[in-house]
């Protein structure tokens, strides 16, 4: 009788867990360089995605007013997290897709003085951050990947 109850509990839990389609690869082969429009929005045509970056600029610079025509660099990793940064930013922001928006997972500090010419490369499962002649940095959604760690 006891084992029959346990079987039912397992059956119910298995039946209630959400359906997962695995494996999946959300990675973009290259980053996108997107220009901020007058409404503070950026649009990526190939992947049909657009979002407001005003809060992001406010978070980074405490100013979201003069952001029109500024550019951001955007790339998506294998797991589907978005990595965003821009020239003069001190951080790379990691976002996940959420109900009608992108929610911040982590702000990764990458430069004390601000990035001069940042660029992302897809190096699955990581994301590589370049900045001019600086040594490239490997990023995961959790932060900077230490050398030698896999």
């Amino acid at each position, binding site marked *: 009788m006891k084992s029959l109850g346990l079987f039912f509990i397992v059956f119910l839990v298995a039946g209630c867990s959400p359906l997962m389609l695995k494996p999946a690869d959300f990675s973009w*082969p*290259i*980053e*996108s*360089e997107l220009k901020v429009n007058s409404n503070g929005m950026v649009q990526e045509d190939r992947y049909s995605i657009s979002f407001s970056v005003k809060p992001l600029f406010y978070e980074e610079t405490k100013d979201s007013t003069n952001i029109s025509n500024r550019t951001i660099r955007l790339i998506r990793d294998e797991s589907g997290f978005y990595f965003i940064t821009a020239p003069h930013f001190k951080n790379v922001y990691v976002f996940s897709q959420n109900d009608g928006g992108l929610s911040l997972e982590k702000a990764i500090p990458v430069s004390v003085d601000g990035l001069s010419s940042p*660029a992302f*490369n*897809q190096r699955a499962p990581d994301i590589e951050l*370049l900045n001019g002649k600086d040594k*490239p940095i490997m990023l995961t959604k959790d932060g900077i990947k230490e050398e030698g760690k896999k």
Partner: protein
Amino acid sequence: MKHLTRALGAMMLSAVGVLMLFSVAVVAQEQSDYAIVKSYETKYKAIKDAIKQVQTVQQCAEVSANIDDLENEFAADTALLNKSLYPDKYDDQITEVRVELRLNQDKLGIIESSVARIADLEKQVRSLSGKVDSLSAANDKLMASLDVMSKAVEKNTKTIDSLNHLVADLRRSIRARDEAIFAMTDSLFMQYDKNIQGLPDQEKKMLVGKVERHNVVSNIMDAAKQNIKFLETTQLSSNDLVGMVKEQRQFSSYWNGLGPKLAAVYISSNDRAKQIAAIDTVVAQWGRKADSSLWAGLNAEFASKQIPVQPFHSGDEFVANLSKYFDDQTNDSKSSSAEKESRLNHFLNDVWNPSINSQWLPTLVDAGIITRDQQSQLQTKLSTWEAATKPSHTLLYAVIFLVILAVVVFFVIRNRKKPQPSEPSPQA
């Protein structure tokens, strides 16, 4: 309208060419994948635009060479490009431009084999142009090292070996660069009709564009100037001096063929015409400098050994003055036999055998500075001097023979005169 279209075509092709050339100069930092893709897209678009404008076989060949360059340049990035380009992948795009070019050629009635031949020449031009640039840069570095090392040698003789190696390297490199310049220019002009003046304006403009893009005029000027500087900076051996004269003559002969072609191309540009005239002057100056270095070196061979040959400044003068020296020695009736023989031996052992006959004469003949007949003439004159100074070998052999004969006769006679010892009698 047609002219305008052609002009636009030429401009477009030049732009693509410049893009291709400058692509090599990638900044020495890690390039982002995005930058690679953007760079490819820019070049691909330029090629697409150029295809629409092509009118002549040369233009088709240039686009074809540009497509080859594009493929070569991005050969290592095909996987990235295939993943990143959308909707057409990299492989599809390359096929597409090749097909488009071929269709345009067919429309214009241009034969593919002509395009392929000219495209091959164009590829040679580009490859040689790169070689000229890298050799020029290497030569500049070697020349700078030569300056430094020449000064060091004045203070420290231990560096002479290194200096000699450096001079040999520089000379080889200068020669390779000079050959590459003319090979490049040959390949460039072979793409067009031999009669440059009769070329349509459009083709002439395109040719001017290529001549400019590959810095033909300034490369030739730099080469001639660097050769002069090399001559001024270095102490060369006999072989090197003769070699330099030979190279100068080859260069001058190439330039004599090329100069009028360039003048025809630049008929409407006063500045360029002046530059071409300036090259004439520098090449002539180099010729004079090479000749004077050669004759100074050869005169020094005699002077350093106190051989009183009259100074000379040309091949004919050299042969005449050395012949006169041989004649004077042959007809010398004032000196004693011992003095004459000593002079001959000094000449043979210190100058003629180690240097003039073994090094200078063969290279002078090889370079066409003196003829084989002149070389024989000198050797005959020297033989005459030798015959007049040294006792002839026949006489020497005769004397030796007579001496030996006398010795033999002496011993034979001596043996005959000796009294025979008497034999003991059997009774005793």
